[in-house]
């Protein structure tokens, strides 16, 4: 190890040519020093040839230590480099970015620290890599695809969500959020808040502490009052398209209180006003928030004739028939494309009203009524509606106590309808005969791509055959999308397959 080092140093010395008159002596000294363990520090370049005799002087003589990775011949960095470093150092006080050349700009962005205040960076930096660093520094898991593929959007959306999650009414200063508004108004498209903390009266939870703890420590003397009012914030966000809210507390553990999960009337009213005022809103989700009939009606009334709304998700609530009726009214007074009422308390009358609305609707694509109890009456009404409907593609009726009569009607629908691509009838009591009838209906259908009949008391054979037909349909659809000219061929092939099946 020592030998090559020594030779290296020697050659380097020769190259650097300290002084030609006493080269031989330096070589000798260098060979002597090479035997020594290499100094870890970077030796200063010997500007003055002093101390020839002492060993320290000799070591100082060495211009290059081969094993020093920091060393480079370019001792003085270029002025641009210095300027860039200075800009980076003083970026907080004097942000210079737009005036720079593209290459220098990139350098500055690479060197900027992610801890800079948002007021400086928010509207100045559009470089994705910088925001990517910010995101990855703050959160270990980042799904940028969820935020429209933009790291900047993701940063601001998640930042805002964090603030909202930890906002405690009457304790936290609302300016914390409203100050951020001018910075993030252009970059927030979706807002998904899965907890709203209730106000705390007696002991304000420590701000720095774990948010879950603070939420759990909020043992309320009085019944929980209202949560944070979104009105001001949403009004300021001009590009907001998606709103995903859960009025509840996460990770409460043993500190469970019913009060923590109250969605009060004033909350409901303010939320209704908020979503009514937000004309860019496309997707609105309010799940797991104990929304009952009245509150659902308040919300839906505010959504009537909304210009942009396309998806409404009120799953995992307490909506009954009246709420279902209201949403049925909404279907024909908006451009709603997706309606999700899963895990609610909709029964036959609600389903009937929905079916009535569905019969003439031309917007709705997807309807989810999972885990309700619409029973055969509601199921039959929906099946009748589907005979005239030409728009719905996805229908989820899992877990609805449906049985044979609905199945017979649905089999008729399957023979006629050409728009439905996905039906879910799992967890019902279709029965063997119902299964056979569905199979019959399925034999005439060419469009259905998914048909879920799991745990619905259907005979294995019919379920299998239905599966075959669905997969054949899927093949045909694939053929059609890949090359429409071969569609006919695929159809004939499928026919032959059916006959074989």
């Amino acid at each position, binding site marked *: 190890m020592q030998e090559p080092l020594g030779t290296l140093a020697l050659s380097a010395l020769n190259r650097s040519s300290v002084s030609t008159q006493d080269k031989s002596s330096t070589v000798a000294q260098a060979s002597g020093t090479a035997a020594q363990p290499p100094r870890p520090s970077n030796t200063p370049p010997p500007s003055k040839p002093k101390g020839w005799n002492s060993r320290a002087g000799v070591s100082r003589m060495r211009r290059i230590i081969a094993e020093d990775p920091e060393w480079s011949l370019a001792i003085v960095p270029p002025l641009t480099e210095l300027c860039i470093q200075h800009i980076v150092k003083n970026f907080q006080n004097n942000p210079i970015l737009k005036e720079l050349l593209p290459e220098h700009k990139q350098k500055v962005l690479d060197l900027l620290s992610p801890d800079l205040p948002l007021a400086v960076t928010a509207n100045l930096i559009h470089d994705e890599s910088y925001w990517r660093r910010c995101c990855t520094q703050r959160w270990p898991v980042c799904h940028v695809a969820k935020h429209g593929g933009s790291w900047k959007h993701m940063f601001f959306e998640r930042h805002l969500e964090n603030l909202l999650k930890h906002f405690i009414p009457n304790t936290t200063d609302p300016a914390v959020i409203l100050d951020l508004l001018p910075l993030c108004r252009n970059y927030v498209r979706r807002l998904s808040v899965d907890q709203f903390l209730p106000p705390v009266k007696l002991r304000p939870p420590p701000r720095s502490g774990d948010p879950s703890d603070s939420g759990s420590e909020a043992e309320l003397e009085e019944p929980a009052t209202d949560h944070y009012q979104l009105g001001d914030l949403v009004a300021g966000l001009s590009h907001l398209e998606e709103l995903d809210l859960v009025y509840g507390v996460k990770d409460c553990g043993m500190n469970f209180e019913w009060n923590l999960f109250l969605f009060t009337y004033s909350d409901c009213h303010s939320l209704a006003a908020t979503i009514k005022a937000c004309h860019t809103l496309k997707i609105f989700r309010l799940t797991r928030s104990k929304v009952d009939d009245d509150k659902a009606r308040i919300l839906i009334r505010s959504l009537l004739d909304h210009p942009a709304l396309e998806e409404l998700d009120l799953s995992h609530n307490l909506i009954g028939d009246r709420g279902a009726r209201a949403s049925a009214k909404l279907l024909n007074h908006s451009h709603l494309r997706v309606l999700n009422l899963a895990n609610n308390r909709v029964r036959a009358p609600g389903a009937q009203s929905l079916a009535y609305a569905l019969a003439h609707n031309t917007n709705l694509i997807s309807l989810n009524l*999972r*885990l309700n*109890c619409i029973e055969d009456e509601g199921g039959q009404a929906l099946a009748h509606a589907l005979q005239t409907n030409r728009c719905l593609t996805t229908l989820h009726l*899992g*877990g609805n*106590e449906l049985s044979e009569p609905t199945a017979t009607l649905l089999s008729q629908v399957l023979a006629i309808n050409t728009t439905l691509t996905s039906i879910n009838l*799992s*967890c019902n009591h279709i029965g063997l005969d119902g299964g056979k009838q569905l199979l019959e209906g399925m034999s005439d259908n060419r469009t259905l791509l998914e048909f*879920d009949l*799991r*745990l619905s008391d259907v005979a*294995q054979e019919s*379920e*299998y055959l239905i*599966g*075959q037909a669905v*997969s054949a349909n*899927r093949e045909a659809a694939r053929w059609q999308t890949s090359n429409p000219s071969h569609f006919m061929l695929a159809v004939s092939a499928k026919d032959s*397959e059916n006959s*074989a*099946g």
Partner: protein
Amino acid sequence: MNPPGSLGILEDKEKERLSTPILGPSILSDNPYERIQARRLRIAARLEARRREALGEYLDGKKESEEDQSKSFKQKEESRLKLAKLLLCGTELVTNIQVAADIREIHRRVEEEEIKRQRLEKLENEVKTSQDKFDQITVRWEEGKQKRIPQDLWDMLNTQKAHCAGLIEDKNKLISELQQELKTKDDQYVKDLKKQSDDICVLLERMEEQVKNVMKSFRQELNYIEKAFEMERQDLLTSNKKTWEQALQAHKTKELEYLLNRIKKVEDYEKQLNKQREWDCEEYNKIKIKLEQDVQILEQQLQQMKATYQLNQEKLEYNVQVLKKRDEESTVIKSQQKRKINRLHDILNNLRSKYAKQIRQFQEENQSLTSDYKHLVTQFKELQKAIRHFAFIDDKRFREIWLMNEEEAKDLINRAFDVDRIIHTQHLGLPWTAPDFWFLRNVGPISQQPQRSATQILEEVLLQTEEEGTEEAASEAESYLDLPKQISMKTTRKILMLLCDESGFLIESKLLSLLRPLERSECYLLKLDAIFSEQTSLTLALDSGEQADLKRQKEGSLVEGEPEEKAPPSPTLIHPNEVLKILEAFVMGLKKPRDSPTPVRLVKYLRDNSKDSAYWEALATVIPPATLNLWDALYTALEKYHVVLTQRAKLLMENKALEQQNTELQMLLQQYLDSKINSELHVPPTQVLRVPTK
């Protein structure tokens, strides 16, 4: 039981794993459902396996039927189907948990409802029974009030107490039951939570496994596809190589054919070439001989040409020398000429400058001269005027002088006559008769009244009008023109102008062109002159006999012409009544001079002097020479007489003078003697002198 294939095994394992937590902790009533579900899943898996087999077979059949499709495509399709199935199965497997949870929830709900209903019924029954009991107790209280006997009352109270205790116990039992139920519910909640967490664990496991499986199978399929592609590529390569080789072979054979053809062709061409060559050779020889002959002839010609050339050369050399000399000469001359040209140029320049100078000078001079000329013209005009004036005056004076001289001469003649008469009568004593001559009767200058032409009159008129304008100098004009007095100068002028304008046909065209640049008045003048001269020439050419007629005719024509001209009425010009008069007067005025035979053109005041000398001569020689001789002789005699007389007179004169002298001297002496000084003197001269005093 286990369907063939690793996937099936995996699924089975998972199912078992799934079923165990479901089966294990669940309530007894749940068990059959779970079991049913598990069984169903197993059956579904088996069916799927079977279906897969069937599909595989089907795919095989497809393979056979679609031999033409490529291996890779088949492999791709196969893999795709496989993977789609795998994904479907995987999602089904994963969603199975959700479905299971759903159905559990539904069952729970149904049960819950049932239990709730039972509980409610129970509670209602209990309420009813307890109410009955309470009613009994209250009824007993009424009975108890009627009881008077304490023992009875006590008994009753006891029974009442027992009843109440029974009631309370019932209630308590109910409460405890409900509490028990609550506890079991709590337990179940905990269990449910645990189960759910287990479910989630299973879900996660399955998902992970699924991911792994899918990755593995995707990789495998990718490998298969790659292999298939490789194979296909290999096949393609080999087939292409084969076709390539075949093509190469075909190419080779074709090449050979071409080569042979080419060789044949080359031979043919060679033969043809040889033939051509021979033919060409013969041709060449023929041409060569011919050309050689030509060459000889040409050489001869060349010699001749050379000779002539020599000759010409010499001639030309001589010429050249001559020309050289000439050239030298010409150069000399040229230089001379050049010098000359230079000189001439100088001269020319000088002359030019001089010329320019002179032009300038002459222009100046011209200007001055024109001004002078103008000046002179005016002067001349003035002079003319003066001349006219002076002429008039001279004429007058001439006349006066003439008259005077004539008078004098006549006086002298008369005196001479008187003298002659006296001489004749007194000295000679002869009778004297007075001579009678024509010229003695003449008084004034001998002259004719000059005849004036119309033009002159016109000129005068025009000039007058021009110069004097409105001045009424009619008297003079009228003296010349015997115009009626009522016609003014202006009208006359106007008439003349009209005449000039209208009777342009009489003027020659040449004259018109000449007249154009002249002034207006002059123009008119000349025109009128021409017109009238034309008229006069016409008239003069005719016989005197016919003159009157012609004149009359002319008058007529003129008079006729006038009204015509007047037809465009211009009332301010001339009154139509006057026109006739004017013209009449005019023509009459013209007629007068025309009567005289003398030509009209005469200088205005040119007099005929020829007769004057004769006249004066005659006047001078009024006394004939005989008388003169007489007179001479008389003169000499008289002179002699005169001399005598003069001598006598002289003597008389002397005498007289002497007498006078004498008297004067006497006077002087007297004077001196009388003076005072004589008295003063010592010796008075008087004393000395004895002056004879008288």
